[in-house]
């Protein structure tokens, strides 16, 4: 990014700065307030916000943890490059979020699980699936979520502030980390609600300015097809030529549904293939499901899903259309096509459509509001990063660390979770150069293509685990492994050859890379399903007594469940008891030093005021905080989770869901 001039510092007036500072004070206040309100020293309190959220915060935090700065940069950028169709990514999720609330969450609630791998372990038994899935999820977080968020945040800050990217990102991460490590999920959920309002408000204001500038809604549709950069001739015709399709807007730019063979987002792929990816993202992913599990009751969760669905209608108007307007207003920069020009404008040769939204903010917004928009972007970045850090810390602590050290105490688990967040921050900072180098033209395509190659087997296994009783452990495991191998067979060549750009197409053979990535997702999903079902039918089924309240058809069952993992737990319990007995024996024999070493002070009392403050923030000190053992939650597990709903409210929620689908279908039809 050295080629970018440093004279773009536009946030230097008092109005902008005061807005940003005020915003940060607000967020910190909400975080502290919610910290005081909830008990965060227990596992349930820290990770699930006490399971007491009403539908408003659930829906808002679902939306907020989904929308990151990646959406602002990616949706607007792809909108600028190829038109409306990218909004289909958002509008497809409307339906999948209902699947989440109506089919998936009831089972997760009755199963009484905290993480998704934990669910699979209860459903199938054995430990290999759980470990496999935890590691794959952490991998996906780093490559599709954290890196993308960091990259898009960096693009925005670079356009707005002219800062050195590393300084900006590290500062942001430090703030986010402090906020996550100290706050827990409760603070996250309350601040998410505030941030969602800030995001929507700021983006609405910008949308108003953008439409005003371009001459209204009609102006957008009149002028978009003429948005062509002034320089379209290759400076070195001997080396390469630039074909007209690279700089002209697509003729089908105003359609969501595009030709199944020649379109850039063919409609069968957008409807069926994307549903598979969305099922993985919304229904089996920790970040999202954890929000739902914190709901007060199933009705609240469903209502939250509907609210999130309505909010998901907005990105088309708040991001995609402003991105297209940005191309109309600044065709030379946003739609640049000559590699040398692009390099000068945004630091990469393949195209600058990713700067569409930041460019709009920097040039259109008046002072003060520009500060608000920066605050919005910081909010989106911090919120989604914090969500990811929080969830991956849950995943790491509960599934991987707890496996390595089964005897770890609860306090140790809390500390390890926070240390893991710090590690992820370090990995992310180290990843920035890679992300900068790997920036291709279309950020959103990058995310979705990686997800298409890795996620369909996971979606298939979760889908079958919930709805088909016959599926068993070997089937699920070999389905996951086979699916991963098939996915890698496409992923690795594509990364080796590179995806190329319009001017310089990739050399990847058509047989390997020619199939659209969403079509590939469909193929991979079907292959995984066939593999899982085939292997399951060849191996003995799991008896019903292990499956009560773990599959959809048995969700109302009141029978006692014999957990498949209960034997392992008993073995651990026995080992723990033996250990304790041994220690007591040693104490009785008077080996004082050894006892001191074993029991010791749990955590050394920190010295000095600052030390004590930090300890309080991390809830390590203080006498009132009783940290339970992980096993103590069993009492809670023994009372059957309640998923019965009041008939009246259940009907209200169902009717609302139908209304939401009707609205969504109208919009799909309108922009088809």
């Amino acid at each position: 990014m050295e080629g970018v001039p440093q004279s773009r510092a536009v946030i230097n007036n008092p109005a902008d700065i005061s807005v940003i500072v005020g915003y940060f004070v607000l967020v910190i206040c909400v975080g502290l307030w919610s910290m005081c309100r909830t008990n965060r020293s227990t596992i349930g309190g820290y990770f699930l916000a006490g399971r007491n959220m009403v539908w408003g915060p659930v829906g808002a935090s679902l939306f907020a943890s989904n929308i990151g700065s990646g959406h602002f940069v990616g949706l607007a950028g792809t909108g600028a490059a190829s038109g409306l169709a990218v909004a289909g990514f958002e509008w497809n999720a409307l339906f999948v979020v209902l699947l989440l609330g109506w089919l998936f969450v009831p089972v997760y609630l009755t199963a009484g699980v905290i993480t998704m791998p934990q669910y699979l372990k209860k459903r199938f038994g054995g430990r290999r699936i759980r470990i496999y899935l935890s590691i794959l999820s952490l991998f996906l977080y780093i490559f599709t979520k954290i890196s993308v968020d960091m990259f898009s945040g960096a693009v925005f800050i670079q356009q707005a502030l002219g800062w050195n990217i590393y300084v900006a990102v590290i500062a942001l991460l430090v703030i986010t980390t402090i906020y996550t490590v100290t706050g827990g999920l409760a603070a996250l959920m309350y601040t998410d609600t505030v941030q969602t309002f800030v995001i929507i408000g700021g983006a609405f204001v910008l949308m108003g300015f953008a439409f005003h500038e371009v001459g209204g809604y009609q102006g957008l549709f009149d002028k978009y097809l003429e948005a062509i950069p002034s320089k379209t001739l290759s400076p070195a015709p001997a080396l390469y030529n630039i074909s007209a399709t690279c700089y002209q807007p697509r003729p089908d730019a105003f359609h969501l549904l595009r030709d199944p063979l020649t379109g850039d987002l063919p409609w069968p792929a957008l409807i069926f293939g994307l549903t598979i990816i969305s099922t993985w993202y919304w229904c089996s992913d920790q970040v999202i499901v954890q929000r739902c599990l914190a709901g007060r009751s199933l009705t609240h969760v469903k209502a939250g899903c509907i609210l999130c669905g309505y909010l998901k209608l907005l990105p088309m108007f708040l991001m995609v259309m402003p991105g297209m307007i940005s191309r109309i207003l600044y065709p030379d920069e946003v739609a640049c096509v000559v590699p040398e020009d692009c390099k000068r404008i945004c630091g990469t040769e393949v195209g600058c459509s990713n700067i569409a939204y930041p460019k709009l903010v920097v040039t259109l917004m008046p002072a003060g509001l520009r500060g608000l928009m920066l605050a919005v972007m910081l909010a989106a970045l911090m919120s989604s990063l914090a969500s990811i850090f929080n969830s991956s810390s849950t995943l790491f602590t509960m599934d991987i660390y707890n496996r390595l050290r089964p005897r770890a105490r609860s306090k140790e688990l809390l500390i390890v979770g926070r240390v893991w967040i710090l590690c992820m921050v370090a990995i992310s900072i180290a990843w920035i150069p890679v992300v900068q180098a790997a920036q291709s033209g279309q950020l959103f395509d990058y995310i979705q293509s990686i997800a298409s190659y890795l996620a369909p087997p996971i979606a298939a296994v979760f889908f079958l685990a919930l709805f088909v009783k016959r599926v068993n452990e070997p089937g699920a495991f070999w389905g996951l492994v086979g699916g991963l191998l098939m996915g890698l067979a496409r992923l690795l060549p594509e990364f080796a050859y590179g995806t190329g750009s319009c001017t310089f197409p990739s050399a990847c053979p058509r047989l390997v890379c020619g199939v659209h990535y969403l079509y590939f997702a469909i193929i991979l999903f079907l292959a995984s399903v066939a593999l899982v079902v085939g292997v399951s039918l060849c191996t003995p089924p799991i008896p019903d007594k292990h499956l009560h309240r773990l599959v959809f058809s048995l969700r109302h069952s009141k029978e006692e469940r014999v957990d498949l993992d209960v034997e392992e737990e008993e073995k651990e319990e026995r080992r723990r008891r033996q250990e304790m007995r041994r220690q007591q024996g040693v104490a009785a024999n008077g080996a004082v030093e050894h006892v001191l070493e074993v029991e010791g002070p749990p955590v050394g009392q920190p010295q000095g005021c600052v030390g004590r403050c930090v300890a309080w923030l991390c809830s390590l000190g203080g006498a009132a905080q009783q940290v339970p053992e992980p096993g103590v939650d069993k009492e809670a597990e023994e009372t059957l989770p309640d998923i019965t709903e009041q008939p009246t409210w259940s009907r209200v929620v169902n009717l609302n869901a139908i209304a939401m689908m009707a609205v969504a279908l109208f919009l799909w039809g309108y922009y088809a």
Partner: protein
Amino acid sequence: MQALQVAALCLLMALEPVNCQQARGNLQPWMQGVIAVAVFLVLVAIAFVVNKFWCQEKEENMESVVTIGDKKEEDVVSNGTEGRYSITAADFRSKETQHAYENIIEYEGKVITTLM
């Protein structure tokens, strides 16, 4: 639902048509939307009706199971008012053997009795 359609239609009539945005075929964009919503609502109605009939059938089955005598909790019935006897042979064929029959009692729901 009908009101929703009408409301959506009125709203769209009030809006200015967008010229450059062409729909597929000869339909206006809003018309496509209305068609999509109408098809969806018809499907929902069909699903609702099918579900309702299916569920009712299931409830009837459950009642007949109860009648045959698998009831765990005995109802309080005064002597002589236990209802009427079943007529069809299939209903009172004994479970133990094909050639024995039982006297099946069908309780009538609204018989008010006292414990004495």
